[in-house]
């Protein structure tokens, strides 16, 4: 550890009661004794169970749904369809102004991904609900499906959205755009042009505890919803909007989450379970099976990122053009926001005077993607740092040096028009080199984030 950081660490130990010290976890005893109450540990007398009738195809038109055999299953209570949902079409991020609404709680006349919910069945036991689901007869007309972001944008691709495109519209534009300097001028001046394409795959969070909630009618007319959402109030607000009830009608209880990693910020199980509780007057549990968690719940989105960099012989990157495509799957969920974060960060933590970014939020017939640990930024960082290594290799420069030379400093303007404050990239790289046992040359050790060296 450097002298400066060691001194800081000493001060921390001396002056703070908590910072720099290990503190026993408040929930630790509950966790090691199994006394912590997770949603699936909650049950009530007379509690019903909800299971979804799901689309077996990737894209199609719903011609007819026949519940007659399902209704005969012992323990069957009722079915819910899109007609039962007060505001069936929604988009989670409407709370921060993202629109238009585009995802149905229950499919209306079309399904856009395999596993899309078509109807909910409520029964006295989980087994009865599953049995009834298996007896629902679906009459679907299969349509051509698209699974690749660039294929989805080609003329002739099946169009998935009512507004007539397969991309999210950002303030009238086909993608989230960043324009800074003159990227073509930069390429013309550059000694090297370095191009590469980077792809990332969808990732399932696979929390050990699957997504679940229990909605319970209360004698005062309110509904208590026990949930393992990672976003309690966000979920309550969306549930109130979907069910068209005042927020005061809902009491959400949560905070105990058996693993989330971003996979439990979508508002999926709560609105329909609460509706089922309203329609039956009984507590209703809706818990994903492991199969649903893997095949239906949102994933991290897949990305394709085309990089073109203009680089000088001395290592300075003077122009960067990135065209990115996020695979949102069939619906928005959190991907329009992920793309905006991506556009703001895909130039990397480097000062580049000429930047051009087009980042697309693209719809395909895959299961919807959504939030996961740094969504939008994580794939950007992967691509940027691979690209930095490629630049270093191409021009014959040390990969540490290329990053120090280009690192942004306090006061630099970033491409999305934010001034850099409190930069620590150089300091972090110095600490990383020390921890990795890598000796940096003197001229890099002299650099710091708060000022540029005089040339």
């Amino acid at each position, binding site marked *: 550890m450097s002298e400066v950081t060691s001194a800081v660490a000493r001060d921390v130990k001396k002056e703070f009661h908590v910072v720099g010290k290990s503190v026993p976890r408040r929930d630790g*005893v509950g966790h*090691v*004794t199994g006394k912590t109450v997770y949603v*699936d540990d909650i049950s009530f007398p007379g509690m019903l169970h909800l299971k979804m009738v799901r689309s077996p195809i990737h894209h199609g038109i719903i011609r007819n749904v026949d519940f007659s055999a399902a209704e005969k299953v012992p323990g069957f209570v009722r079915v819910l369809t899109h007609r039962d949902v007060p505001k069936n079409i929604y988009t989670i991020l409407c709370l921060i102004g993202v629109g238009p609404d585009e995802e149905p709680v229950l499919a209306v006349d079309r399904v856009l991904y395999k596993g899309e919910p078509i109807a909910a069945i409520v029964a006295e036991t989980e087994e009865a609900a599953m049995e009834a689901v298996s007896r629902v007869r679906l009459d679907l007309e299969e349509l051509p499906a698209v699974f690749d972001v660039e294929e989805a944008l080609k003329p002739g691709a099946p169009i998935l959205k009512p507004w007539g495109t397969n991309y999210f519209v950002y303030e009238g534009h086909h993608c989230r755009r960043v324009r800074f300097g003159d990227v073509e001028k930069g390429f013309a001046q550059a000694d090297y042009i370095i191009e590469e394409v980077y792809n990332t795959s969808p990732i399932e969070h696979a929390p*050990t*505890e699957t997504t679940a909630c229990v909605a319970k009618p209360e004698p005062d007319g309110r509904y208590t919803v026990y949930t393992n959402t990672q976003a309690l109030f966000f979920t309550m607000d969306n549930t109130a909007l979907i069910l068209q009830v005042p927020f005061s009608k809902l009491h959400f209880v949560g905070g105990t989450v*058996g*693993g989330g990693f971003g996979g439990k910020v979508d508002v999926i199980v709560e609105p329909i379970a609460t509706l089922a509780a309203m329609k039956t007057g009984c507590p209703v549990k809706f818990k994903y*099976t*492991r199969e649903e968690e893997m095949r239906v719940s949102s994933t991290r989105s897949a990305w394709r990122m085309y990089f073109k960099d203009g680089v000088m012989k001395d290592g300075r990157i003077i122009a960067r053009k990135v065209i990115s495509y996020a695979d949102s799957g069939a619906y928005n969920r959190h991907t329009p926001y992920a793309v905006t974060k991506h556009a703001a960060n895909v130039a990397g933590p480097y000062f580049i005077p000429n930047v051009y970014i087009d980042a697309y939020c693209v719809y395909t017939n895959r299961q919807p993607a959504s939030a996961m640990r740094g969504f939008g930024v994580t794939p950007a960082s992967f691509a940027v740092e691979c690209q930095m290594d490629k630049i270093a290799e191409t021009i014959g420069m040390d990969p540490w040096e290329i990053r120090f030379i280009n690192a942004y400093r306090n006061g630099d303007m970033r491409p999305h028009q934010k001034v850099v404050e409190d930069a620590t990239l150089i300091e972090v790289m110095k600490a990383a080199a020390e921890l990795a046992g890598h000796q940096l040359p003197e001229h890099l050790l002299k650099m710091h984030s708060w000022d540029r060296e005089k040339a």
Partner: protein
Amino acid sequence: MASRIVAFNLNGRDVEVMVKPLTTLQTVLREHLHLTATKSGCRQGGCGTCTVLVNGEPMLSCLLPVEDIAGQQVVTLEGITPVEGLHPIQQAFFDNYAIQCGYCSPGMIMIIKALLDRNPNPTRQEVMDAIAGNVCRCTGYESILRAAEDAARRLQSA
């Protein structure tokens, strides 16, 4: 098919449950007896969080029809938790921060109990082999290994 009565010993007490054929021990514990320390992560033998001890051997309760353990001895996490304080393995998990979301912890503690009961001084590799079927998605494996080693020391000095 008609239900049947199955009797077994649970945490030192004799219990009887009325079950349909193929009802799993996990369902009996969680839904019939309301003992929810044993978790339900996948119900297909893939995650290990429902691990209990049957005659001292670790078993996945989600795959085990309760009829198969009639007359046998079952121990769950509730069964090793003292009235006051913690079992040395629980204390080691707590002190070593071998818990994050807590959902894999019951299975981890039971699988380590089974290991230490038959091998009081395991190597790190033996601990890793023991927990190979138990998934921690918060990726706290290092601290879980440390907790297991710490628990072995505590139990030996006790």
